[in-house]
């Protein structure tokens, strides 16, 4: 069975999506049912990635490899290690949640909506599981198509602007990566990412490649200053779209750094690490302030996402300074692990926050903070969840939000005190914008008639939010299973990147 595990995870949702599409627009209940079934099966099918995962080795597992386009030596080559397995699990975990979240709020073309999400899920799993450079690019790009349609069809008033911006930004970033990939193929005669890892390259070539990868992944994460598409896309996307965007798609940027930039261009990464660190710190601090000023709940969470993703890039790239300072990689491991934990944790938290906003939006049809106030009085259960998620977002110890940030800050101390100082500002800023949001929306007196008439969350919404709350608490209190999955791969990566591959 393991021989086809990853393929099944990729193609089951895609085929399921096509099936849902064929159900037709006139039977929404059936479309929802089939979509839920497919995502549930996909999630269950992905569990062996956790239970049968060998945490003692950094070699690729669940490998599938067969020729695809022989003329160019392109292979259908899949496999996972400690970096990709958790992200695949995160993706399949969010599948059913997104379907349930769109259960009632989507009424137009339900079959197309569900189909788009299923296809997207398959493609995202494909991104995380492929080890062939071109196949990666194909999944990476193809994923934009369903997202483009989701934002454009079911989005808010400025959806067309937002979705075009989203598509063109990402497309522009990724074509530079494509040139880099073709260059690597011309040099090596192979599309195998693992071959590229070991291939010697001159520093100049590495720098150009690094910049090409940076163009693609910095847009995806997104990093300052190419982040401006994200608030627009988030604000206009339907709830499910925002959830997938924040929880999974942003992680693809971070994953790209781990899979491509660091191991393929280690020397260039070491030389240019200041650039990424500077952009990350700007994201953490400046975007944190920007978040503070937002009037729109979704925009606030979007900026908070950018700020939190700054930790991911910071955690990945402080490794080089630490190595220069200490001559060892032990401290750097903490940073890279922290970045990975932060990605998973941010997936849960941002997904949960967008779902909470979605709950309010479904009832009041406004995302503006000023339209709310005193929601706790009419929706006590909802308030409980919302405050918990906002606490997690500000990095409260005991939630998963704390673990990743703490690891990254701890690690960046060994690189440079000021890195750690600036990064730690987020604990203040994050708390400020998260809790201030809670104060303005959840607490206080009932603001208006609409809030007075709010209905508390129903069992369907409670289920989704409850599952996420449990996950956030679980990884906050006991991150060990996740760290164990990562550890060997992180060590392997660090051993690899501190060795120069300049010819």
């Amino acid at each position, binding site marked *: 069975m393991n021989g086809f595990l990853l393929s099944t995870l990729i193609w089951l949702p895609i085929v399921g999506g096509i099936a849902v599409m064929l159900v037709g*627009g006139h039977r929404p209940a059936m479309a929802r049912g089939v979509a839920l079934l497919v995502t549930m099966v996909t999630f269950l099918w992905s569990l062996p990635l956790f239970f049968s995962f060998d945490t003692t080795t950094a070699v690729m597992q669940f490998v599938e490899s067969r*020729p*695809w*386009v*022989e*003329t*160019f030596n392109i292979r259908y080559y899949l496999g996972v290690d400690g970096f990709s397995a958790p992200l695949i699990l995160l993706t399949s975990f969010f599948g059913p949640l997104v379907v349930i979240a769109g259960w009632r709020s989507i009424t137009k*073309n339900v079959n*197309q909506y569900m189909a788009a999400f299923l296809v997207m899920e398959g493609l995202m799993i494909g991104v995380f599981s492929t080890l062939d450079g*071109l196949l990666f*690019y*194909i999944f990476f*790009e*193809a994923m*934009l*198509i369903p997202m*483009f*349609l989701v934002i*454009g*069809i079911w989005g808010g008033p400025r*959806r*067309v602007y937002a*979705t*075009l911006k989203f*598509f*063109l930004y990402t*497309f*522009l970033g990724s*074509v*530079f990566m*494509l*040139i880099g990939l*073709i*260059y690597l*193929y*011309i040099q090596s005669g192979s599309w195998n990412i693992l071959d590229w890892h070991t291939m010697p390259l001159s520093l100049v070539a590495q720098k150009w490649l690094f910049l090409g990868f940076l163009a693609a992944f910095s847009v995806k994460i997104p990093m300052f200053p190419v982040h401006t598409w994200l608030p627009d896309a988030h604000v206009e996307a339907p709830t499910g779209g925002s959830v997938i965007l924040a929880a999974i798609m942003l992680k693809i940027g971070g994953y790209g750094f781990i899979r491509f930039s660091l191991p393929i261009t280690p020397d260039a990464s070491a030389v240019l690490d200041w650039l990424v660190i500077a952009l990350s710190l700007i994201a953490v601090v400046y975007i944190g302030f920007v978040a503070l000023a937002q009037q729109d709940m979704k925009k606030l969470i979007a900026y908070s996402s950018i700020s939190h993703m700054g930790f991911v890039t910071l955690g990945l790239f402080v490794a080089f300074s630490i190595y220069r300072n200490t001559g060892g990689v032990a401290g750097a491991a903490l940073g890279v692990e922290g970045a990975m934990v932060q990605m998973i944790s941010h997936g849960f938290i941002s997904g949960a926050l967008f779902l909470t906003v979605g709950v309010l939006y479904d009832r009041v049809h406004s995302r503006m903070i000023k339209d709310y106030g005193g929601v706790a009085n009419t929706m006590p259960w909802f308030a409980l969840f919302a405050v918990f998620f906002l606490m997690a977002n500000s990095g409260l110890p005991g939630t998963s939000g704390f673990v990743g940030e703490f690891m990254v800050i701890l690690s960046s101390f060994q690189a440079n005190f000021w890195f750690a100082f600036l990064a730690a500002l987020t604990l203040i800023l994050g708390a400020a914008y998260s809790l201030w949001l809670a104060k303005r929306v959840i607490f206080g007196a009932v603001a208006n008639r609409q809030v007075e008439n709010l209905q508390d969350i129903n069992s369907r919404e409670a289920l989704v939010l409850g599952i996420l709350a449990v996950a956030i608490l679980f990884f906050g209190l006991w991150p060990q299973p996740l760290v164990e999955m990562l550890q060997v791969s992180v060590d392997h990566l660090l051993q690899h990147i501190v060795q120069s591959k300049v010819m």
Partner: protein
Amino acid sequence: MNSAQMLLAAPEFWLLVMACVVMVVDLFLGEQRRGIIHMLAMLTLIFAGMITLRGDYLADGVQSVTAFNDSFIRDRLGDVLKVTSFVILGLVFTYSKLYLRNFKMFRADFYTLSLFALLGVMLLISANSLLMIYLGLELISLSVYALVAFDRNSGRGSESAMKYFVLGSMASGMLLYGMSMIYGATGSLVLTDIAEAIRTQGSGDILLIFGLVFVVVGIAFKFGVVPFHMWIPDVYEGAPAAVTLFISSVPKLAAFAMAYRFLSSGLGDLHIHWQGMLSFLALFSIVLGNLAAIMQTNIKRMLAYSTISHMGFVLLGLLPGTAYGFGASMYYVIVYAVMSVASFGMIILLSSRGVEAERLEDFKGLNQRNPFYAVIMVLVMFSMAGAPPMVGFWAKLMVIKAVMDADMMWLAIIAVIFAVVGAFYYLRVIWYMYFEEPENEAIVTAPVDFNAALTVNGMMIIGLGIFSSSLIALCMTSF
């Protein structure tokens, strides 16, 4: 001339005979039984394909066979391109039948002229001498001039036919002038002899270079690349959609064959000279085509400018002058033809009686009118934009690799940036189809054969993208 030589050109003879048969049979058919002409034309294509595919002319290890005093060449490349032309023309006929019926233009002339143009395409594909190239080219051009003016009551049609005729004649003149110089410099009309002469006497002859310039102009006009693109938007817009459908697909295959025969078989040793010329033609086509297309509100014009940029990409593949590069170019042009017929097929589909759906707004809300057709159009548009996993992505990938092989990184970077610029106007079509409300609620329907052809066409676009190895291998082994 013996019968073995005749046999090599059997597909061409078959087509010649059938084009005449179609013309004559029509005299005996009434208005109601015109369908027979369509069937006859389709059968012509099917049999032409079967005859071409027999391919037993090649003995072991022989790459190509020539006939008629070396002016005609039969090789694998030619066969692949010819069979592709038959398939594409089959789609063209199927789509245009609906159009011709709706617009009360269902006459046999359309089929006769198209078949003659196809014959020209085949001759051009198999040309091995300057004369044969010119013969094929003129046969295509003259048939197409007449086709553009096919709707004789349309002022726009006549105007664009006139424009096309004047510009086309000038381009033919230039080509002929270039040919005469090459003939003067090398003393032969046969491409392989020309190549041999250049090899022995060196490539420094100024006469030869001048000849090359004019030949490149002729090729550039045929492709419709900047700055020889002026006719494309007007002709695409002015001609009936069924004719635009034809012009935008099959003749492009011939243009590629002409470029390959000329530039590789004949003037291969002048590579260093024509590489520079082609790189600028390609650059300007990609830039101008994509920028101008953004501003169009008429979808036929938009696709015309998009064609210009696509042809720029085709030229990119020719730059390195290697077998790989030609393979990449050929793949691109085949893929382009497949995408192009699908897009014009959609225009025909949306055209109601007597009114062409040529405004972008006509695509508004198509998803609500018929989700199936909208999905097909999405595939076509994303494929043209070069988004994976559609087949258009592979085409762009291959030509960009060819440019990088030729060490022109700057050109590759400009090309991909403008591919992103181009994505905008393709996305706009999707935006109109999916994000806007329909202006016209009429249900979109089409006959069974039309739907079948469109489905096959759509499946080709995604299917050749996912199962891409066979077509790539086919193109790569043709050189």
